């Protein structure tokens, strides 16, 4: 039983990490979801061996209730944040019509510098680097 759980956690973390490294936003969102599930299973396993009764009544031995409470809290947080992330990904798609994650500012600056090297002038990247008020 516990070996199955360990394997499940390993698969979830592995698949989550793989998806997180992709360039498509939708895959990143799913990857983060899988990582969250893996973490919740890991919390559950931290409570010890499976099979004990849940905490109810007076005669023990009981399963450790704390990891269950922690996992429950973590699930709620993951749920809320995933909803926000999906909204953000949708907004990004509405604005750019593409699901790809773009290069970061420095990478684009270096690429632009290489492209314009012969002309002895680096690119005007200021609108990219500047404040958040551009359309």
């Amino acid at each position, binding site marked *: 039983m516990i070996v199955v759980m360990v394997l499940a956690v390993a698969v979830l973390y592995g698949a989550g990490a793989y998806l997180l490294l992709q360039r498509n936003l939708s895959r990143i969102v799913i990857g*983060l979801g899988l990582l969250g599930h*893996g973490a919740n299973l890991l919390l559950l396993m931290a409570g010890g061996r499976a099979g004990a009764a849940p905490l109810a009544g007076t005669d023990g031995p009981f399963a450790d209730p704390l990891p269950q409470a922690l996992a429950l*809290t973590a699930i709620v947080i993951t749920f809320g*944040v995933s909803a926000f992330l999906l909204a*953000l990904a949708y907004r990004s798609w509405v604005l750019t019509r593409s699901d790809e994650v773009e290069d*970061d500012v420095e990478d684009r600056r270096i690429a632009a510098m290489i492209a314009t090297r012969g002309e002895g002038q680096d690119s005007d990247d200021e609108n990219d680097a500047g404040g*958040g008020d551009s359309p």
Partner: protein
Amino acid sequence: MSPLLILPIALPLGTAAVTIGLVRWPRVRRTLGVAALTGTIVSCVVLLVQVSDGSVLVGHVGSVVAPIGITLVADAFSAILLTISAIMLLAVFVYAVGSPKTDETRAFFHSVYLILAAGVSASFLTGDLFNLFVAFEVTLTASYVLITYGGSRLQIRHGMTYVVISLLASTLFITAVGLVYAATGTVNMADLATRLADIDPGLRSALGVLFLVVFGIKAAIFPLFFWLPDSYPVAASPVTAIFAGLLTKVGVYAIIRTHTLLFGEGGPSTLLLAVAGLTMVTGVLGAITQNDVKRILSFHIISQIGYMIFGLGLYTLAGLAAAVFYIVHHIIVKTTLFLVGGLIEERTGTAALRRLGGLLHTSPLLAALFLLPALSLAGIPPLSGFVAKLALIEAGFSIGANLTVGVAIVVSALTLFSMTKIWSGVFWGAAELPPPNPEGLDGASLRFPRLMVVPTGFLVLLSIAFVVAAAPLYELGEVAAASLIDPDGYIAAVMGP
């Protein structure tokens, strides 16, 4: 349990709940927000006075005692950070109200800002690892909303980086909490401090490194800083200012707390000293190559985090006291610089150095507001940065960490260089390219909104007052450092007799 432990969390959070309902009354929301943050400051100051003798105030929520219940703990270190962050939160709130570009009259800005305030307070007050995770999530979720508040393409693109990196860090955090619980059977930090000593040293250091990575991402230490300079500058100016002042410092707080209480080896840490040196160097080199005010300042956050980790890495009373002193200095000065950056942007419509110039003649007030914190950041005597860096460097020499001390001194000089770059780009000379509002460069009659200038000026005065009162404040830092380096009082206070 003392209401002082609850108020810094409950006041902003309760007010946030009330203001969500007041969609149509932005003025009422503003007033309530200012009242709540003022109340938070008062309760934090009272708390600071109570624990300034080195005592530890503990509260058990619902009277369920540690290690089972939810524990709130305030020692001198957390009370100092609570107080200074409450002051920053109020000053930046007023600035946001005055700043036309922040768009704060739109629904939910005030509520989300207050939730951020509650999350920051909760991070400083919590006594167990899992609630630290929850407090981080509250802070981060509010920050996700604030960083993408304008909803522009740029904000979404860079905000996405921030959200994904933070979520990855949170997942690692919850993993680390699960592993700690599996190894020891508790998540209460005071309880852990005694139980971690019994487990296998290899496992203990693995857990320590995992937590260092988690908090290192939040604090933006080398090599985990790459997300910060991309995401911070795109937010509205007051949002960037409060992020720069507080959010990375919450990460630094968590590193210091877990290192001193749980994973410290009781001596100088080569790993932390190396990380500190590399963080300082990469941050400042990044700043030198930038040509945008907000991006230069963002890279400086990273470089300054290195100094705080340096103080922790020394692990002496003087080193930790200097680190505490440095954190407070940094929070004030960095927030002020970003607020000044926001004023520059407000006037000219840009923060790009090539589009700015000659503001010294048209707006000498702005130049003065920039110059004092900029020189302080670089460590010019007699400003607060000088006192803080001197304390760190003395502490470094006293245990022979000469290499890192040398790096710290060189980085100070480079910091001064990049500050002069902003100075000569923005305040001297002429603009190479016209800014979006050209009249901002020569129209001396242009006036700033008063609510933007007053908080900025107040923070500049606060940083000067900080130097004047440096001796008693440093003693307070020593009280905090003493309880960090010898956590027996903390453990005894939480676990009870």
